């Protein structure tokens, strides 16, 4: 019986097991059929776990909201009263569901310190994060994809080695250090770009972009390095595949073969990694926001952390998880389009 259970490898080999960040689980779900249904089921399950985790962190946090709010001289009775009024004396799940239910309706609670609704603070900070990470992602792709193509199509050549050297250096550099160097070069020395602050796009596209270029570039360097290395490796692998010979024998031009056929197949791992990079990017954005004094969610979280302001911390985490999950859905759709089949069937 033991022996029967252990031969798990025959089910699926690990390489084909998942496709994207949320994967086609493909296994559970006799009830849910179809790729889209399965992805939605996964996403919802992941969302449930993530939000439970975020809530549990706050729930088991030793910081007592009532005591924090009332100050040090509060009587235990007053604390108990306030706890009851805030609904904090209810059970774990009761509190969780009212929290998540409110959050879905846009109500993230009120900051214990400033009294400002958390939703409002997030609404001001979120555009900053989306701007800086969005611009960073675009920059990373604009640098990483061409670099990966150049390196992958010139395997072993000078450019390949040069790009490899640059990218393996780039992944060792801390974001904030890259940011500092950028500030030194472009703001302190050359005075071309502003070193700090954020301007909404409504104030002018260039004003908006000019404040984002340095922080976004600092964020983009690492991602670009990862993208170019990965794309280079999968291009090299894909170029060795028979379908390239097949396309050559059919008389398609090398250019068409590269861009219409090889790249499509080689991009899948890159797209997968971008999905994994998004949470990292959001995290790194916190650091750049501190460096470039951008009033984003990271600054909000930092201040909240210093003040043990639970609703704000929870709200920020929740929004970040939501962004990641939405991006993952997009990534899954993109993967489905790039590689309609899992590799399962024809191997």
């Amino acid at each position: 019986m033991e022996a029967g259970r252990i031969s798990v490898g025959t089910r699926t080999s690990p390489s084909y097991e998942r496709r994207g960040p949320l994967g086609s689980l493909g296994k559970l779900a006799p009830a849910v059929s179809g790729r889209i249904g399965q992805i939605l089921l996964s996403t919802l399950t992941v969302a449930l776990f993530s939000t439970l985790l975020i809530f549990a962190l706050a729930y088991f946090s030793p910081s007592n909201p009532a005591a924090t709010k009332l100050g040090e001289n509060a009587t235990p009775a007053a604390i108990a009263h306030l706890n009851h009024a805030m609904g904090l004396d209810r059970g774990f799940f009761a509190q969780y569901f009212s929290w998540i239910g409110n959050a879905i309706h846009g109500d993230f609670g009120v900051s214990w310190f400033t009294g400002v609704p958390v939703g409002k603070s997030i609404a001001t900070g979120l555009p900053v994060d989306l701007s800086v990470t969005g611009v960073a992602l675009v920059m990373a792709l604009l640098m990483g994809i061409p670099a990966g193509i150049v390196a992958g199509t010139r395997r072993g050549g000078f450019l390949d080695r040069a790009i490899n050297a640059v990218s393996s250096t780039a992944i060792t550099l801390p974001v904030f250090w890259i940011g500092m160097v950028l500030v030194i070069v472009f703001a302190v020395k050359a005075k071309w770009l502003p070193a700090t602050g954020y301007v909404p796009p409504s104030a002018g596209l260039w004003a908006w972009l000019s404040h984002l270029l340095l922080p976004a570039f600092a964020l983009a360097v690492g991602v670009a390095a990862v993208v170019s290395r990965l794309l280079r490796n999968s291009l090299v692998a894909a170029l060795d595949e028979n379908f390239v010979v097949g396309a050559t024998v059919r008389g398609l031009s090398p250019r068409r073969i590269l861009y219409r056929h090889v790249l499509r197949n080689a991009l899948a791992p890159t797209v997968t990694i971008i999905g994994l990079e998004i949470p990292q990017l959001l995290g790194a954005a916190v650091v750049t926001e501190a460096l470039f004094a951008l009033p984003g969610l990271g600054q909000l979280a930092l201040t909240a952390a210093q003040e043990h302001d639970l609703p704000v911390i929870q709200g920020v985490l929740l929004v970040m998880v939501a962004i990641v999950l939405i991006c993952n859905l997009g990534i899954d759709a993109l993967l489905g389009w790039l590689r309609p089949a899992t590799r399962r069937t024809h191997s």
Partner: protein
Amino acid sequence: MNTVRRVFASPSTKVAAFVLFVVLILTITGGLLAPNDPLAQNVPNHFQGPSSGNLLGTDYLGRDTLSRLIAGTRVTVLGSLATVLLGFLIGAVPGILSAFLGRTSEFFVMRFVDSLLTLPIIVLAVAATGLFSNGTGAVVLAVGVLLAPRFFRIARAETLGFASEQYVEAAQLFGASRFWVIRRHIWSKALPTLAVTGATSLGYAILALSSLDFLGIGVKAPAPSWGGMLASDVQYLYQDWSAAIWPGLAIAITVWACNAVADGLRDGLGAHAGGHGETGQEAPAHDLDSLLTSELAGAQGA
């Protein structure tokens, strides 16, 4: 012996091993090897360039940059080692065991691991300091927990791969217990790949912890840490930017060394992560798991 030689075959791995050796010595000795007192202020002597007294110059309080760098090694490296160890402990063994789960529980376990992957490490660490204690402990815990999914997924993938191999099946036919098979075969086979994951994760952890020190979370001033030094330097970029170079360089070189040793381990131990055998560079990384080990390495200075 042969394996060791293969791991350190390339010159870059040798250099990297030497770098890590030096870092290790500095970690063990703490501030002992520092030429000056890292906390001693000498305000009139601030922002000095390199000189015989202060090899890397002084900071805004006139403290010796080299001494602070050396003294800051311990807290950065120890913290990073602790996170990697934590990630390994709570990731690797459950990862192996997860390969033997039934379908439904497997689904939920995998989704739980995925849910950890949706949390940005830096943000969770910031949150943890806000929700719990404001100190290194919370930071190490948060980063360690979020490193665990890597170890989990790698261990799981390796187990799924090995469990289907014939000698493992044969062992079961002869009535070997599951535990014995894991200990005897799978564990020893998965270790090289896990070692690679450990090395890349260490580089990643150094970047993450430095970022948090930079944010003022974790190590408290005036105690020196690499990230914390940069945080104070950044205030004075307009007066003197050269001081900001050194801590960044220390971080970059250490992270590079971790990645280079990971490459050496991968080639020398025949680990699977991110490539197969000799040419780690050439191999395609199709699956998420090898992506996690090979390419996420310090991907973000997160």
